[in-house]
């Protein structure tokens, strides 16, 4: 069998990224130009700013990825690009760069779902064993997906309001922590001596769905009440209480889903899966059940293009192709590409 080399491109939010992956498993290059420094002063990702920065970085990032991989365009088998979901103005920079690159070099083009990318990041580190349950947890997502086999996705739970990462960012803002807030809350939670007790939103019996808006409101109310009394907010114990509530619910639902589906492996994906508290708690709970738990290293948890190339490789092998009419799809649904 010949080796498959795929160039991945990802611009769905505030990272301009390109990567070359061999056989869907081996990273030859993984270049990420982050906009965090430029977006910091606005306290979050401003879509128009993100789009402008993507245009400025896109060819440099692709060139860097190709150079680090030591490959020429003719050595590639296809170009895979994030098609959605994400910020529409940001997505279409990657999509159009990918189309132009594929057209100029006579390469097949593959549009990839961003979340499929996060899931397939695990292929780049330790591998995927089916059937599995994937917990996708990030600034835009909190989802439980069951994968019976390579390329098949069944959504079994999702958030009904805020994504977990969104709740992290909002709570961080209320606590006066810098953007992005997730890592600060994680760190403070570890430093805390005690934790404020916040509610757990388990929803109805047996549900795998999530809800974080009630928790977020509880935290905001708590902070306001303390401040109204003229007292100092104990930031660390609020952070710890918030994080405990999130982790409790996420771990309980993930483990229950894994047991019910009888999977061999649980994988975590998305920016929030970098959270140390969450990793530790999930790892411990799954170990007790004898289920393998995998979470990729930090640089593969946050947005990157290697994961897009990895998912793109599985799609390439399943003969999935896009044409020059490929467009950015901000609300794209995660669909299976394996029909077996």
């Amino acid at each position, binding site marked *: 069998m010949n080796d498959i080399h795929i160039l991945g491109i990802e611009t769905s939010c505030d990272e301009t990224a390109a990567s070359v992956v061999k056989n869907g498993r081996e990273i030859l290059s993984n270049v990420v130009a982050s906009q965090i420094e430029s977006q910091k*002063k606005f306290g979050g990702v401003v879509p*128009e*700013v993100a789009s*402008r920065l993507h245009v400025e970085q896109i060819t440099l990032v692709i060139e860097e990825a190709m150079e680090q991989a030591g490959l020429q365009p003719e050595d590639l088998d296809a170009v895979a690009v994030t098609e959605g979901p994400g910020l529409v103005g940001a997505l*279409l920079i990657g999509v*159009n760069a990918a189309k132009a*690159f594929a*057209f100029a070099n006579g390469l097949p083009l593959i549009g990839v779902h961003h979340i499929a990318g996060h899931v397939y990041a695990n292929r780049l580190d330790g591998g995927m064993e089916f059937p599995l349950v994937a917990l996708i947890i990030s600034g835009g997502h909190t989802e439980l997906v069951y994968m019976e086999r390579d390329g098949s996705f069944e959504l079994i739970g999702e958030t009904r309001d805020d994504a977990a990462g969104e709740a992290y960012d909002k709570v961080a803002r209320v606590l006066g922590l810098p953007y992005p807030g997730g890592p600060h809350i994680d760190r403070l939670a570890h430093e805390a001596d005690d934790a404020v007790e916040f509610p757990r939103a388990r929803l109805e019996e047996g549900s795998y769905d999530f809800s974080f808006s009630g928790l977020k409101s509880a935290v905001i109310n708590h902070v306001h009440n303390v401040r109204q009394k003229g007292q100092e907010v104990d930031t660390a114990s609020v952070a710890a209480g918030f994080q405990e509530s999130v982790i409790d619910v996420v771990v309980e639902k993930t483990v229950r889903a894994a047991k019910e589906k009888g999977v061999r492996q649980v994988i975590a994906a998305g920016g929030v899966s970098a959270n140390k508290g969450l990793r530790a708690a999930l790892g411990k709970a799954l170990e007790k059940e004898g289920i393998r738990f995998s979470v990729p290293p930090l640089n593969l948890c946050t947005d990157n293009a290697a994961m897009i190339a990895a998912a793109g490789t599985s799609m390439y092998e399943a003969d999935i192709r896009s044409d020059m009419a*490929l*467009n950015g799809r901000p609300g794209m649904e995660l669909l299976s590409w394996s029909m077996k």
Partner: protein
Amino acid sequence: MIWLGLDTANAPLSVALVRDGELLVELNSAMGLNHSAGAMPAVEQLFKRAGIQPADIDAIAVSEGPGSYTGVRIGVTIAKTLAWTLDKPLVGVSSLRVLASNIFTYGVTISPLIDARRGNVYAGLYRRQEDGTLECLMEDRHMALSDLLGRLKKEGNPVVFVGEGARKNEEALKEALGELGRRAHFTQDLPRAALLITEAQHAEHDAVHAFAPEYRRITEAEANWRKANGEAREK
């Protein structure tokens, strides 16, 4: 020498291939377009009809704005990616200059207009020289239409208004300038990639990686940030 030209700066689309001053193929449309989905299929179609390969071209010209932020970005992203991966020179041309280049009358002031809503326009002023080149009289900018019309009235020279922004503001133009102002023919309101290429041939090459649109406006977030921080300093 074969040029590829691409204008997606506003609602219309125009793509062209020109070889040594001879137009090979040009595709133009004003309606029903989504540039993100449609620009590359148009480019693909262009090469198919001309019977040439991407690597056969020698240079790329693109409309660099101002205009629709998204539209400009799509054209610029495609153009710079092609220029980089094919290793060909890239030339950005003002989207207002491209509109102005539709007018071949000597001597008159050419006022290409792109509507920017709430009484604002993107505008520049140009004049066709006797040697055929287009001279820029006023650099492209985002401005109130009333300010532009005031300036043109004061100057008192005959003006030709061109572009979709001229069509949208027809009444205001007539009212302000009367006999002094004329409207271009409606077919001239669309950008022509072949003329974009003509303009690009007179311009210097741009650095490909650093190439970015000429938005002629900072983002709203940046404007708000500057306002907030300016005020904070004054306190």
